[in-house]
């Protein structure tokens, strides 16, 4: 037969067709296999079930080695929705002791939570009891797609220190984004040291890599477990807090709003840190956490708000020692310099009231009697001394820098999260308010006695007291004493020296000693213990004056420096001094002497919340 060469050319069309198809396929395979790594991830997600093994969280001890916070196991019922097959719902509910309606509601809630995926483990029921766990574990093979995740819950030995300890909460999407350690459903520290030391406490998660077939059945461990990661327990913490003192101080603050901070001056270690009103830390554990947390958030007295280092108060007369220090350092006064006080400071139509004492008066008696006029005159002489500083604004900046060096105006850098900085105005601040060159000492005179714009946290005030106790240096106050197998961060161990010479501190300390011996703090005099102190009565826009006190003891070898701040409780001598002295006495002697029992009783029973203007619903 004759060959048709015209038709023979069609072999090129057919051959070309198959070559084109093959090229398209090669290109597609290139695309699938080489240009996109997502399929590798999908395959691993299919085949490997990464079972997280949670490490136990670090334990927390107090300074005397007493266990405060420990762990108890809890069990979450988890499910991977796409692996769940038809199962006996009744049996499941009976095992867990819930109704079918509750289960159905849990399913609905779970699907509504953000980040729900049918491919990843979802939390169905949180924190089932050990008995329910046992029963479910036995029957688990009947419920494919379900498994039990072991978690830990915090347990507390003392109903004290909730504000310092903080608690645990489930992570939110922001946490997961911020820190790759976290996965949905994990817990992280919230508030207190649980938050600030979270990275030490949480440990390192372990992973067990299991192989799972298409039906969700576990086929064994991947590579015989050689790629598993064993969990590493969290580090234990030893706090500087004395839990007994903490508990005692909290009891003194019952029915009062305010804070107590007690520091060991030589080390900067915080011995007690009370914020009142407080709450039972066990409220924020486990299944009832959500409900209780809402209650605490809505409480008008704000128990979750740690007043000891987050609240900024006018320091009132507890501020006067700083003024004495600055005036001495700047050579505005010497120990003999006298200022007049005629029931107050009167200058150019301005009057700052004072109480009855002799006049004129020099520094130490002025501290002893808490004379407003003395410190106003001193402040005025400094700020208006143009011959030395050039302008009031320059003088004020010098004044401010001294205060900053003492720890005011900026966060001290304690090891708790969200510390407030308080407030010390600078010259620019007043320039904005009054205009440049249009203000002088008289305009801002109230800052000289710790009023006006001045704000400080009880922690900053306590730190001043510790600095005076040390006669001129301090260590950043902190609540953690030791971290297991780790050295403490250096900034919590270094001495910090304010810009005022130590010799001036000795004079101011003496003035404070005199206040206890024969001044405003007489009630702080303890049998056999030399106490030094300073009262504070701070005017504020919220009603009755705040009652404040700083004090340290023993005078020559200080072991404790304390600040007490009670909102709307009146004179510093009425609540501040008794409470502060009771804390000092309890810490130094371990008990309250008989002749002071009446004082203790009165403080325990006193209620000052009624003056706060906050209505408890």
């Amino acid at each position: 037969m004759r060959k048709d060469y015209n038709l023979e050319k069609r072999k090129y069309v057919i051959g070309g067709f198959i070559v084109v198809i093959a090229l398209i396929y090669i290109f597609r395979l290139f695309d699938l296999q080489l240009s996109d790594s997502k399929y590798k991830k999908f395959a691993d997600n299919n085949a490997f079930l990464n079972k997280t093994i949670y490490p136990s969280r670090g334990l927390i001890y107090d300074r005397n080695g007493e266990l405060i916070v420990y762990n108890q196991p809890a069990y979450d019922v988890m499910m991977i929705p796409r692996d769940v097959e038809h199962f006996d719902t009744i049996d499941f509910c009976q095992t867990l002791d819930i109704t079918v309606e509750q289960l159905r509601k849990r399913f609905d809630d779970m699907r509504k939570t953000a980040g729900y995926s049918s491919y990843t483990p979802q939390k169905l029921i949180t924190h089932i009891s050990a008995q329910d766990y046992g029963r479910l574990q036995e029957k688990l093979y009947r419920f494919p797609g379900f498994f039990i995740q072991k978690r830990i819950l915090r347990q507390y030995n003392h109903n004290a220190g909730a504000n310092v300890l903080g608690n645990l909460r489930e992570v939110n999407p922001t946490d997961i984004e911020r820190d790759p350690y976290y996965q949905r459903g994990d817990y992280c520290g919230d508030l207190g040291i649980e938050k600030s030391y979270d990275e030490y406490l949480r440990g390192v998660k372990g992973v067990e890599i299991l192989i799972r077939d298409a039906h969700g059945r576990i086929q064994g461990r991947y590579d015989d477990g050689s790629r598993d990661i064993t969990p590493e327990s969290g580090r234990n913490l030893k706090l500087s807090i004395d839990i007994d003192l903490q508990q005692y101080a909290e009891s003194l603050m019952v029915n009062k709003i305010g804070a107590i901070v007690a520091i060991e001056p030589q080390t900067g270690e915080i011995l007690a840190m009370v914020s009142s009103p407080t709450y039972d830390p066990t409220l924020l554990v486990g299944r009832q956490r959500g409900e209780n947390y809402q209650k605490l958030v809505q409480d008008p007295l704000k128990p979750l708000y740690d007043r000891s280092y987050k609240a900024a108060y006018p320091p009132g007369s507890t501020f006067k020692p700083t003024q004495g220090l600055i005036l001495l350092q700047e050579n505005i006064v010497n120990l003999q310099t006298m200022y007049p006080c005629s029931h107050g400071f009167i200058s150019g139509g301005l009057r700052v009231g004072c109480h009855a004492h002799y006049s004129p008066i020099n520094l130490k008696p002025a501290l002893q009697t808490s004379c407003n006029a003395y410190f106003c005159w001193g402040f005025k002489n400094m700020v208006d001394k143009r011959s030395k500083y050039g302008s009031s604004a320059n003088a004020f900046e010098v004044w401010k820098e001294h205060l900053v060096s003492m720890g005011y105006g900026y966060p001290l850098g304690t090891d708790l999260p969200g510390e407030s900085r308080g407030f010390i105005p600078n010259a620019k601040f007043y320039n904005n308010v009054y205009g440049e060159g249009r203000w002088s000492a008289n305009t801002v005179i109230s800052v000289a006695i710790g009023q006006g714009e001045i704000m400080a946290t009880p922690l900053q005030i306590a730190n001043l007291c510790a600095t005076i106790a040390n006669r001129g240096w301090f260590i950043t106050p902190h609540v953690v004493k030791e971290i297991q197998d780790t050295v403490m961060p250096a900034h919590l161990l270094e001495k910090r020296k304010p810009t005022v010479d130590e010799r001036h501190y000795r004079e101011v300390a003496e003035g404070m000693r005199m206040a206890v011996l024969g001044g405003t703090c007489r009630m702080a005099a303890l049998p056999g213990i030399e106490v030094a102190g300073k009262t504070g009565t701070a005017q504020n826009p919220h009603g009755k004056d705040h009652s404040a006190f700083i004090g340290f003891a023993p005078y020559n070898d200080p072991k404790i420096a304390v600040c007490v701040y009670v909102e709307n409780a009146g004179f510093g001598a009425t609540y501040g001094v008794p409470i502060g002295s009771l804390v000092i006495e309890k810490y130094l002697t371990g008990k309250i002497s008989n002749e002071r029992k009446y004082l203790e009783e009165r403080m325990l029973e006193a209620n000052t919340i009624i003056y706060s203007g906050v209505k408890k619903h």
Partner: protein
Amino acid sequence: MELRNTNTPPSLTRGLDWFTLILYLILVVAGVVSIYAASYDFDEANMFSFEEFSGKQIRWIGCSLILGFVLLVIDRRIYETYAYPIYFGMLILLAVTIVIAPDIKGSRSWLVLGPMSLQPAEFAKFATALAMAKLFSGYNFVLNASPINYVKALAIIFVPILLILAQRETGSALVYLSLFFVLYREGMSGLVLFGAFFAVLIFVVTVKFSETMIMGLPSGEFSVFILVMVLIVVLLATYAKHFAGARNVGLWFLGTGLIAWVLNYYGINIPGIPFFLGVIGVACGYILFEILRLRIRALWVIIGSAVVSILFLFSVNYVFGNVLEPHQQMRIKVALGIEEDLRGAGYNVNQSKIAIGSGGMTGKGFLKGTQTKLKYVPEQHTDFIFCTIGEEEGFIGTATVLTLFLILILRIISIAERQPSTFSRVYAYCVAGYFIFHFCINIGMVIGLCPVIGIPLPFFSYGGSSLWGFTFLLFILLRLDAARRDRR
């Protein structure tokens, strides 16, 4: 018929296409290794155990080699002489199968013979190829000489298709459509293949882009109208070589399109369907005028194409919604990327893409594929065997297999073209067509480019019928080819 005695054994070794034979052996061995990998369980398995798929496949391969040898030593004239009896015998077997086959997953295509199950549809392939070859090698047979020739050829193709459809094996039935390549090679107008391609294009565009709207009609239909316009202009220029007409019609389309676009821009909406029908209608009127004026008969084809395309467009939605079964609609939607349906129709393809995609360049290593070992890909030892290669041997493996098949198909085409006899050439093209179809559809579906149509990958997919079917096809071809010098 020439009656020269062909001294069979000496001419066999001399004329045998060793290249193809070795390619066959490589593919079969690679196939059984893949089956072993695909069905390998984490419990210790023995590749040669008859309990395993791979062991059974080795047994099938052994039988194939014997069969192949027998096919090679049979006198080639037997095939030519008995082509029709073999074909009709196979048709009867197909018909009988419908009646006596047990229902396996909705299909009645398996003949159970004791321990063995065979699928006659696989063997009907070589019988149909022989029948086609016989028809075309008839004395003075020229395909284009008479429409009767087309009727005969189409009858040979469509009778097995209908019988296999009746067995509810749609995939196996569609394979026979590949014989249109043979018709094309033997003289059928290229417009038919082009038309088929254009129809697929219209179908895909219409179904895929049915969500968004342009000018009051789905953007898919809008695009098809544009395609038809392009088709008219291109056909005028290339097929009819009527360049003035192409220019006129092209300017007419551009002009009216521009006006419609400007009006639309100023907020005057023109209803799409009347607009396009009007514009294309005017163009067809002009072409009709040209036919009457210049008497160019080729122009009729253009009007016909336009009309058929538009009618097809209007019927696509009906066909898709009413003729196709829901699972078929879903498979098409998954292939076109309209639906994901990862738990249903899209599950296989998604898992298959994951398996292949996770292989990377060099793969996870033999027997180390997690997707296949843990049974994430269904049918992984049969229709989806290519996944195992992709996962364990990576791009190197898949590209190699692809290349081997490409070489095999091109080799068969080249064998076909060197045949002195029409019988051998047509038979060879039939074989090439089957391989092309299986290759394109099977790999296309595994990598998510074609809808899922359940047909095996030759020599790789587990199953004796498929292996034997392709062995028949190839070894008869080798036998015919070995004898090509006999006629010189």
